[in-house]
């Protein structure tokens, strides 16, 4: 139901994103999903990788500000309206989405999301029998 996500603080400087990626490459860590939330001064790189614990360790060694969080992960049918339907369920339960991103892995469509109320979100997932996905499914 959750997948560990790494968040890395990155300043808006040319080439900086690649400094993070180069560390991951050097340690043979594969990137499964990546998104950057940005402001005018800095951004947060959010990523799902093949070995999050190792990635956390090597990024810390290189003095990056990095944190790991478990965030909700759902598997979606590759059909029109699926994601809209899921978000409707959250809205009906009065849950706000703080951020969300989606990607495909093999034949799977995956939705990652952080809400303002994780507990309530889990209830919605159970009550509606939504299909979830775990870290092992991404190996």
């Amino acid at each position, binding site marked *: 139901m959750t997948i560990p996500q790494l968040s890395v603080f990155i300043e808006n400087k040319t080439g900086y994103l690649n400094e993070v990626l180069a560390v991951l490459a050097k340690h043979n860590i594969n990137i499964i999903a990546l998104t950057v939330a940005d*402001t005018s001064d800095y951004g947060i790189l959010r990523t799902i990788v093949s070995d999050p614990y190792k990635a956390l360790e090597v990024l810390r060694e290189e003095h990056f500000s990095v944190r790991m969080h478990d965030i909700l992960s759902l598997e979606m049918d590759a059909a029109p309206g699926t994601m809209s339907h899921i978000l409707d369920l959250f809205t009906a339960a009065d849950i706000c989405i703080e951020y969300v991103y989606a990607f495909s892995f093999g034949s799977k469509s995956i939705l990652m999301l952080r809400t303002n109320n994780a507990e309530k979100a889990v209830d919605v997932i159970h009550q509606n029998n939504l299909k979830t996905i775990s870290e092992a499914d991404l190996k």
Partner: protein
Amino acid sequence: MIWNKEIECSSRQAMRDLQSERLKLLVDRVYANVPFYKKRMDEIGVKPSDILSIDDIVKLPFTYKSDLRDNYPFNLFAVPMKEIVRVHASSGTTGKPTTVGYTKNDIENWREVVARCLTQCGVSADDIMQVSYGYGLFTGGLGVHYGAETIGCSVIPISGGNTRRQLQLMSDFGSTVLACTPSYALHLADALSESGYSLEDMKLKVGVFGAEPWTENMRLELEKKWGIKAFDIYGLSEIMGPGVANDCSAHTGLHIHEDHFFPEIVDPNTKEALEDGNEGELVFTTLTKEGIPLLRYNTRDLSTLNRDTCACGRTLVRMKKITGRSDDMLIIRGVNLFPSQIEHVLLEMGETSAHYMLYVDKVNNLDTLELKVELDESQMTDTIRDLQNLSRKIEHALNSAVGLHVKVSLVEPKTIARSEGKAVRVIDMRKK
């Protein structure tokens, strides 16, 4: 015009006699009424009876800003609170402000010295004076205000800020004198055209600028931009506020009102008194102050003294325009700021690392402050909002501690240069 010819053009001997007389009374007063000074004098073995003339001033102990802080809020006051009619304060280095108190006589003397300063600038009862220094705990606004009323100006107490309104009233009311910081005067000049005004709409002829160090070049630039005569008014709240000294039309130094504020120049390292003409730290003894009299207060401003008679006819000693200091204090929009104040706030919050760099700059002639501080990993999150809340929280804490808006930028760990000797914490880009 000279406001008080008897004092301002007095002979050197008559001035020395007056200063000697006042110093003896002052030392008697502080020794009897301020335990801090009694202790200091006892420690170095000086008694009030050792002070026979102004030359004996070198026997007296110095006072530093830290002494005011250590005696916060009222422990250096030499009179009971009942006799204090006004309190002013400026931001201090550890969150505690520096507090000063005035008796009725102090306020009268303050009016007198500011009246002399304004008269030196050619201001008279015929003038309409826009006081755009901040009013409140800061001494600038009220200090200039009382002096301007004393000479009979029509005073517009508009206080600082709100550029558009400043220009509107300046035009509508026909202000002939502007009193504010030199940087704000430049900012107002540059805002003229974009606010839909031109110099023809204004009747301004004199600028009384101070509360921050500025160069002779900036004075000339202000004169040109506004088509006015610009003067430098010097002061500090510890001694009185604005009006301690002021330059005259000769612009060859600022006349110190030495019948109230006795100046000395001391070597920054040895603290030995220096001969006239040598540069050192400017030290004042408040000869007449009743509320919070100070012996040999070291301003840390660097200057020289000149006792020659001035082209304007005044004999009052002149100090060279202040352009530097012997410590790391910054003056930002007229507000005193020590980098250690920033550090104190960061350490107290404990939510960032203590590695920071303060960038001071001028944008549209106004001082700006940006603090770059390293993000502590424990505060790293996955949402932008949390980081923005953190920078806002630091901005609020700094604003309430130092009274200035500081833009806070979070930077990555280990990116602020570590220095091996004395840490470099400030990059001042205002200095060209």
